[in-house]
């Protein structure tokens, strides 16, 4: 029963990782951009929620109403003003610039909020749990996180698969020069993709901040987990990303149960094992890692 509980916790944790991963793979899909500051943006959102909660004494989940649009606006602006100028010059400038963002965000947070660890308090839901019988129980908040993750993934799946903007995303991803000939303003579309990515990662960051404590330097780990979930699931597959997140989450909780220091490390090792055995991930829709 204790093991079943561990696996269940891991599955639910995996939902959160999938949320981190989705934003990362969205912008890679649309414009072949790897955002090394992805995790730091989530932590920035969590700190913004800390400020919102402190200012208006609201529930951190409610704070998302302000924080997610704010992060989306930031994403649109950064894409428009900085990142879009770097596309078409190879991947090196974009990688270096987003790494610069990562360092700027971390040190900015350190200056503004000190190195103290923080946590967001949603008022009780984080400790309440649902008994499943047989001594098994899951936290309401973990369930909520997983449900939000699945809902957001489903919504994104619909958006990309069915809507005009989703078709434009895919067309731009295939061939942005021809997409422009179809009347698609690719620069605006890139901005929208980044805005969507940062809005999703803001949700992930606030849920993370309720689930666990965080500091100015919690970002890079989130980037790595997101990246690993994407690669395990296979690039370009949204539901693969969810499975990738779940595999990573289970690996971490099981590893941590074996030995306290081995949680994150086990996750990394499972990721490397998948990479060596199935380089294109478990659910890749016919694309390779480098495509």
């Amino acid at each position, binding site marked *: 029963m204790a093991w079943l509980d561990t696996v269940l916790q891991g599955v639910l944790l995996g939902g959160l990782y999938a949320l981190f991963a989705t934003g990362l793979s969205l912008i*890679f899909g649309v414009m*072949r*951009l*790897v955002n*090394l500051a992805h995790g730091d943006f989530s932590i920035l959102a969590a700190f913004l929620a800390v400020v919102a909660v402190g200012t208006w004494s609201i529930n951190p989940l409610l704070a998302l109403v302000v924080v997610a649009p704010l992060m989306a606006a930031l994403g649109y602006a950064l894409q428009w003003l*900085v990142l879009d*100028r*770097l596309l078409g*010059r*190879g*991947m*090196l*400038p*974009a*990688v*270096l*610039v987003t*790494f*610069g*963002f990562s*360092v*700027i965000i*971390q*040190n*900015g947070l*350190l*200056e503004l909020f000190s190195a103290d660890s923080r946590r967001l308090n949603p008022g009780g839901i984080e400790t309440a749990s649902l008994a499943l019988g047989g001594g098994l129980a899951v936290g309401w908040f973990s369930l909520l996180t997983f449900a939000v993750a699945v809902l957001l993934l489903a919504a994104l799946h619909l958006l990309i698969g069915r809507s005009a903007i989703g078709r434009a995303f895919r067309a731009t991803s295939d061939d942005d020069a021809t997409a422009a000939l179809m009347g698609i303003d690719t620069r605006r579309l890139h901005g929208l993709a980044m805005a969507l990515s940062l809005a999703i990662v803001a949700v992930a960051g606030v849920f993370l901040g309720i689930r666990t404590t965080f500091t100015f330097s919690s970002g*890079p*780990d989130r*980037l*790595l987990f997101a*990246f*690993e979930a994407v*690669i395990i699931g296979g690039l370009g597959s949204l539901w693969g990303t969810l499975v990738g997140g779940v595999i990573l989450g289970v690996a971490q909780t099981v590893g941590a149960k074996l*030995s306290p*220091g*081995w949680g*994150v*490390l086990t996750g*990394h*090792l499972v*990721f*490397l094992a998948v*990479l*060596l055995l199935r*380089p294109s991930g478990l659910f890749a829709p016919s694309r390779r*890692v*480098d495509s």
Partner: protein
Amino acid sequence: MSALTVERATWASRIGFACALAAMAALVAVPFTGNAGLMRMIVELTALLVLAQMWNLLAGYAGLVSIGQQAYVGVGGYALIVLADDLGVNPFLAVPLAGLVAATLALPTALVVFRFRGGYFAVGTWAVAEVYRLLVANTDALGRGTGRTLKAVFPLARETRELGTYALAVAIGLAAIGAVYFYLRSRQGLGLMAIRDSEPASESLGVDVFRTKLAVYLIAAFGTGLTGALIYLNLLRISPDAAFSINWTAYTLFIVVIGGLGTLEGPLLGTLLFFAFREVLADYGAWYMILLGLLAVIAMLRFPQGLWGLVAARWGIHVFPVRRRVRRPG
């Protein structure tokens, strides 16, 4: 038709050579001043310079944008301690051996990270560096999270240790610059620059892209591991969080990008600027890193060839003439 001559030397390279001689004389003179603080600083500066040269070789010349070179700083540092303290190797001799350890571990690592292309290579190398950090932090023999202290140097007199470290650092610094320079001028170096310009074209001309990139990755791991050992020979105290810190890569990346990516002079200029900044902004804590980050972003947007690129474009100066130039006589 008149005969063409191929030359590499420039007037700047000759002046540069004279400056280098003067700098070497100064470096030899430093120990006689007995200023231990200055010597330590020069060791630190050299270490960052070598890290920057190695990262520049990887990213600027081979297009391998690694964000995980801290793996080899850590491996080198820990290898020094294991070799010197546990296996009884002379600590100064252990420094180059630590570089070999790093290069040896780099081979299987390359087989993993080379599966990623482009931007995902950067994240992949970062993840692998974290694996190294966590493995070390979970190993009892390496002192787990608290780390270890280099004890093998305790029997030495302090002056002997400081002078030895200083001499070793200067030798490594000069050797690294010389090695990168001669590597780039060699047949393999030409192949590398051909790959940077066009991978398919160079492949069709018989350049083995995979082997060339692998060679650069191993050379960079050796140089970075060696430097990691030098850093901890200077600091004596090692811990996984510090030795495998992403900051090593952040510093070198900023040095190279601000100084000039893909040039030999850029990392030199960048390292000097980095140290000058650090001295001036020492009291401003994190603002220092924010400023460097902003400068790197602006550099990538406005002057992607870095400060040295601006200098070279404005005055046409090349201190290290890696390129060959074709001239008509007269």
